[in-house]
């Protein structure tokens, strides 16, 4: 099973996991790293490393960061130098649910590709749809 790590500003990632589990059911091999106000990026890098350590049983890992260019993203990037994993920035609830539902049957690269194909369908202008009808 693909291990999933979510790295975010504050506890957004921890809560995203709880919210996604409301839809998919309890998940195993999930780890989060939360960057809290006043912390150093060095603190966050340590948390990300422990998140990887927690998923030592997973052969493949997919990491989600929240904002491209943000500190969570900035701290994940240098780890790509040391180990192989898939990484997506811009995590949201529908994407995480999609990843949870398919992590049993796909490898990390396929899961990444699936999320990237899906991502444009995860945000919709609902008022726009209603106006069209």
């Amino acid at each position, binding site marked *: 099973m693909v291990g999933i790590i979510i790295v975010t*500003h504050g506890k957004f990632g921890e809560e995203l996991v709880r919210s996604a589990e409301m839809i998919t059911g309890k998940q195993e091999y999930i780890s989060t790293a939360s960057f809290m*106000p*006043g*912390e*150093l*990026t*060095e*603190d966050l890098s340590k948390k990300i490393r422990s998140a990887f350590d927690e998923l030592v049983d997973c052969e493949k890992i997919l990491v989600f960061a929240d*904002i*491209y*260019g*943000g*500190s969570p*993203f*900035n701290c994940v*990037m*240098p780890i790509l*130098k040391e180990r192989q994993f898939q990484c997506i920035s811009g995590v949201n609830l529908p994407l995480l649910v999609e990843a949870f539902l398919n992590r049993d049957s796909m490898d990390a690269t396929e899961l990444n590709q699936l999320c990237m194909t899906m991502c444009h369908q995860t945000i919709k202008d609902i008022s726009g749809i209603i106006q069209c009808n």
Partner: protein
Amino acid sequence: MGLVFLRIDDRLIHGQIVTTWMKEVNSNIIIIANDLLAKDSFMKRMIELAAPPGVKVEVRGVKDTTEVLGGERFEKDRVMVLAKTVEDVVGLHKHGLGFDYVNVGGMGAKAGTKVVYRNISCSDTQMELLHQLKAEGIEIEFKIVPNEKGMKI
């Protein structure tokens, strides 16, 4: 023009915060002044690759930053310099970079520091260095984003 804005932020370029400042000071070039990063070719490449759209980013050592800003290369540009630490700013000053304002925008908490403004933490030594710069006529302001009141020392 050359240097138009000097900021200390140990998170360097992150999220929309730096781009907000760039709009505020009308700059589209960032020089990150830090000796360790300048020597780390992987991190240097990563930082330059993840530059916000339309922004040119260069990572340089402290001395190198002073020299390049003293030359003709950025004469017609409006450059923002991002320093990782107070010590980097002191280094820029010692090497002769001219500036009369330092924006302190981000310093995380670690052993030996205390919170001085919102999420910004400082050690006694760093505070003393900032006061020394102030004594030389440089304005020091703690301010994370442009639209807040901030705190001058």
